[in-house]
């Protein structure tokens, strides 16, 4: 809402308050100011002048030299190329040093050898339009007498001539306060904020007393009183359509509304002043003399004022005559009854409609107007009458027509004011302040609440006030939120802090970051095409996503069932900007649809992604595995096994492992399938892991226990074998551990060696085995016995023997 300070002054006097302070204090009491603009600062140095004489330019055919009286002293000389100037024309003149609204500075100088001491202005050079200045032309100088300004003071500042000395304050009005979408509403707030008087004059309409009455023109029938609780109307005959006077146009302009003609401008003026949207329509366009407020017929067509065709639904409310809709109630009038230059009789409508109905109609039709934006918040039913009278008062004031006596006022929805008990003690203890009862009462009364003993009656325009908490807010916002003393809350002792699973997640993030991985944050919604991009099978259950009904675009239209595509997108982006050796992780929520009626499950996945520019082979696989091993060890998850996993279609079938803990799958990791890498623009392998973080959380061992350090020395034995390339070393170490039993403390792979000597499809693997007893020093004999068992088992299982 843009408020003209000049307009505000009609209702309350805050003229002595500095504009900055005005804005700050209004914000402090709840009317948030977004900014303000002093219209007088738009331009400077432009005065009103009269062209006394026009002569040809001696050197240029297209230029003329004008002598201009700018009041006092001798005339100045202005060279111009404008063709619409004439001797006697009253024009805006930029004097030397003038500044235009677009920032241009005008200096005196010579034009083709002739001194020009200034410049004439067009409407647009003054920051105005031909709507603001009817009678002006777009392609020439603004001639003031063509715009009804016949006798300005020569030399006067154009800001005064054009009535532009004003400031505009822009308010952000919250949806609960539609009453503040009006000059009067903001005047009320200003008056209470600065403790001033508020004067809202009752509009005066002089009776015509010609025996005519509105009932001769119109009968109104409200078919749906729920959606239209009140409808008031008056008729104006002998309408004289003309531009509005300058002062009114300038007020509309300050509010950001385009002037059209006197009748339309009056409806807009009243809407801005009273917050009550008005509608004016041409009486001669009605079929019959009956206004019917009814629901639209399903599929009824309607052409709005802006010449757009709409197909209406039965839920929408229309203003109709006996045959057709003439307005979409509260949203926009119809093209069929628009005010034109030839309009002779006008009906002014000032009605009240149910907010949600207007909101839904407007939304469905894609229409939002100044009118619907007010109605949809729920307006004051009591306000229609005064607004209508104000419109008619303006008609008389502007000489725009003859206001027919009588008023139509159908009011099926009259309600009683809301009453709330005033409990100052409760208000004070709830807020933690000590406001006096007098202060609270006085504040409420300034806000037009009526206080009678302990009963507060809420004014009709404050539908947002329903109970004590609302009254408390009214009082304390004027008292000053910033005067409330700050205190610490008290209460029974409670255990704060993180729950164990929250602490674990935090620790894991900290660990991964400490290991040099960057944490990333990606969107939870993705494009369904990403499932193709990561190579998911057509029948993959992961393709079943939670789908957004109204997405912003295809790219963000489904909730991810896997966070792998998000990781790959980020890795791909980093590769494209040449970031080297990237390691990243995301603690990502995924969204898995549940059965109908249930909310989706939202498990957490820990996704790790990395690539190494230097090591493009399987070495990176083992780096990634190293991170995972460290993570699981840190988490105290033991008995972890890694199983080759050829059926995860996103991964390289020969370089992918499932991480298991017993029967539970902790996750899967490996090299991303080359076809998928290609989809993401990689010419080298990328490695990712997807860990089921909820499973990790469940299996972690949070409790640590101390085991005594070994008292007896260990014996170390190194073994190396030649075996088939196919044989997984994990199986070998399993057999070593099993066969050696308790004596084997550790069996660690320390080398894999391939050569032509060893043979094709063969490899040599070497293990360091540590043997120890916990209750005595192991003898060589015992150790040899264990080794023997191990050798036998390896031979039985794999037919492998020690390398000689």
């Amino acid at each position, binding site marked *: 809402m843009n408020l003209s300070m000049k307009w505000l002054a009609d209702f309350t006097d805050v003229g002595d308050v500095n504009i900055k302070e005005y804005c700050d204090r209004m914000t402090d009491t709840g009317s948030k100011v977004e900014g303000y603009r002093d219209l007088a600062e738009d331009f400077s140095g432009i005065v009103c002048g009269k062209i006394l004489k026009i002569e040809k330019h001696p050197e240029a055919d297209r230029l003329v030299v004008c002598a201009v009286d700018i009041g006092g002293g001798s005339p100045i000389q202005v060279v111009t190329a404008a063709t619409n100037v004439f001797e006697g024309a009253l024009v805006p003149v930029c004097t030397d040093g003038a500044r235009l609204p677009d920032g241009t500075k005008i200096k005196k100088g010579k034009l083709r050898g002739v001194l020009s001491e200034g410049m004439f202005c067009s409407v647009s050079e003054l920051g105005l339009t031909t709507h603001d200045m009817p009678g002006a032309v777009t392609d020439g100088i603004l001639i003031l007498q063509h715009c009804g300004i016949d006798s300005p003071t020569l030399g006067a500042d154009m800001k005064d001539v054009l009535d532009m000395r004003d400031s505009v304050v822009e308010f952000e009005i919250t949806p609960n306060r539609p009453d503040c979408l009006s000059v009067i509403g903001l005047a009320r707030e200003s008056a209470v904020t600065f403790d001033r008087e508020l004067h809202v004059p009752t509009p005066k309409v002089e009776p015509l007393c010609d025996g005519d009455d509105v009932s001769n023109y119109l009968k109104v029938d409200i078919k749906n009183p729920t959606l239209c609780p009140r409808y008031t109307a008056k008729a104006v005959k002998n309408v004289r359509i003309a531009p509005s006077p300058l002062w009114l146009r300038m007020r509309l302009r300050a509010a950001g509304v385009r002037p059209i003609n006197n009748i339309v401008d009056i409806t807009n003026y009243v809407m801005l002043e009273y917050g009550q949207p008005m509608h004016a329509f041409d009486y001669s366009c009605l079929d019959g003399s009956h206004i019917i407020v009814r629901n639209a017929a399903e599929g009824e067509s309607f052409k709005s004022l802006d010449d757009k065709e709409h197909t209406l639904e039965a839920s929408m409310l229309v203003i109709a005559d006996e045959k057709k809709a003439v307005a979409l109630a509260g949203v926009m009038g119809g093209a069929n009854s628009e005010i034109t230059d030839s309009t002779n009789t006008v009906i002014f409508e000032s009605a009240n409609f149910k907010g949600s109905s207007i909101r839904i109609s407007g939304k469905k039709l894609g229409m939002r107007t100044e009118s619907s934006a007010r109605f949809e918040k729920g307006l004051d039913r009591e306000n229609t009458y005064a607004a209508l009278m104000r419109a008619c008062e303006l008609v008389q004031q502007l000489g725009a027509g003859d206001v027919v006596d009588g008023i139509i006022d159908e009011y099926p929805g009259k309600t009683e004011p809301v009453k709330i008990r005033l409990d100052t003690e409760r208000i004070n203890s709830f807020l933690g302040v000590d406001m006096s009862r007098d202060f609270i009462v006085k504040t409420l009364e300034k806000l037009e609440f009526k206080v009678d003993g302990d009963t507060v009656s809420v004014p009709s325009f404050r539908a947002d006030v329903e109970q004590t908490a609302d009254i408390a807010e009214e009082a304390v916002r004027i008292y000053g939120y910033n005067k409330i003393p700050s205190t610490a809350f008290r209460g029974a002792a*409670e255990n704060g802090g993180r729950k164990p699973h929250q602490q674990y997640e935090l620790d894991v993030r900290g660990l991964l970051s400490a290991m040099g*991985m960057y944490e990333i944050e990606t969107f939870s919604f993705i494009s369904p095409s990403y499932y193709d991009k990561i190579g998911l099978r057509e029948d993959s259950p992961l393709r079943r996503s939670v789908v957004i009904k109204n997405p912003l675009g295809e790219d963000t239209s489904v909730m991810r069932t896997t966070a792998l595509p998000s990781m790959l997108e980020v890795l791909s982006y980093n590769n494209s900007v040449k970031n080297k050796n990237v390691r990243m992780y995301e603690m990502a929520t995924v969204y898995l649809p549940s059965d109908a009626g249930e909310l989706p499950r939202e498990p957490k996945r820990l996704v790790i992604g990395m690539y190494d520019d230097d090591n493009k082979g399987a070495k990176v696989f083992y780096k990634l595995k190293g991170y995972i091993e460290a993570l699981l060890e840190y988490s105290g998850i033991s008995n972890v096994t890694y199983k080759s996993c050829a059926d995860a279609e996103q991964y390289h079938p020969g370089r992918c492992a499932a991480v298991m803990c017993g029967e539970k799958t902790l996750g899967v990791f490996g090299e991303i399938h080359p076809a998928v890498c290609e989809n993401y623009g990689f010419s080298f392998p990328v490695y990712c892991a997807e860990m089921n973080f909820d499973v990790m959380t469940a299996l972690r061992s949070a409790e640590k226990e101390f085991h005594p350090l070994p008292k007896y020395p260990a014996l170390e034995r190194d073994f190396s074998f030649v075996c088939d390339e196919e044989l997984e070393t994990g199986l070998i170490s399993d057999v070593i551990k099993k066969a050696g039993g308790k004596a084997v403390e550790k069996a660690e792979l320390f080398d894999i060696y391939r050569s032509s000597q060893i043979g094709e499809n063969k490899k040599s693997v070497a293990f360091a085995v540590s043997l120890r007893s916990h209750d005595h020093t192991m003898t060589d004999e015992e150790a040899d016995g264990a080794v023997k068992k191990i050798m036998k088992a390896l031979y039985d299982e794999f037919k492998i023997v020690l390398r000689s």
Partner: protein
Amino acid sequence: MKEILEKIRAEAMEAISSSAQSLEEIRIKYLGKKGELTKVLRGMGALSAEERPVVGALANKVREDVERAIEKKSREMKEASRALALKAEKIDVTVPGERFSVAPRHPLSAVQKQMEDIFIGMGFEIAEGPEVEKSYYNFEALNTPEDHPARDIQDTFYITDDVLLRSQTSPVQIHVMEEKKPPIRVISPGRVYRADEVDATHSPLFHQCEGIVVDKGITMGDLKGTLEAFAKQMFGEGTRLRFRPHHFPFTEPSAEVDISCFVCGGKGCRVCKGEGWIEILGAGMVHPNVLRGCGIDPDVYSGFAFGMGIERIVMAKYNITDMRLLYENDVRFLKQF
């Protein structure tokens, strides 16, 4: 014999200081089993009873002196050679170290953690709730019925008519109040969704941190005190707060809260766009309708709630002007925090 002993001493001392022979050779030559001093001692039998102790004492003195001199020399030589070695082993300390990489946390989660820690310090717990949420929890239970105008402000993503992507973290408040009776002190950080196109200051997904306290006798002064304590820890001891009346359907009275700019201290600068204040959160006293809806009697209990956008705070704190950077995850961006 005295003369012989003195001579041995003089010779030995000369040999030690001249470094012509190795110290070990000198030791053997003079102090060894067949050394010169030993020879002299062997000839002691020829001395008279009076002379013997005198010469014996002298011989021992000579032995000690020579031993000490050898030891001293030995130490000197070792020190000299170590000094040489140390000199030779000098390295270039300006050559870069072998990097052990530590990555910082993502600024969003780092700031979230900082917030959590501050509130945990005041006795809060952390509550979690679903992101795909029932419309009831996102709106109705928060005093925002179907035809409430506030529903227009938040353009919400819907899954079905009554399931949506939560547009605020406030639904978690409701879950907590349904499950637990006062005293309640929780914060609920997390992702929220609104149908805003991506640009420098908007994102269809962002993070909020919500907080709620419900107990007997909770006042608006407590809200102010709590948020002031938070802001001072988060943004610095000198931070001031400004509360402005506002409207949220689920609080009454409601406030928007600004902090004094932590860059310029309120004088006006680029970060606060010349205002001296930065808007960081919305807050208020829990609306009686919300308490009632959760089965908490507003005549007995009262509470306050607040919510803030984490992106906004991250952007203000680090002077990030484009929100998209937070979701682009460029390593060159991430490593700056």
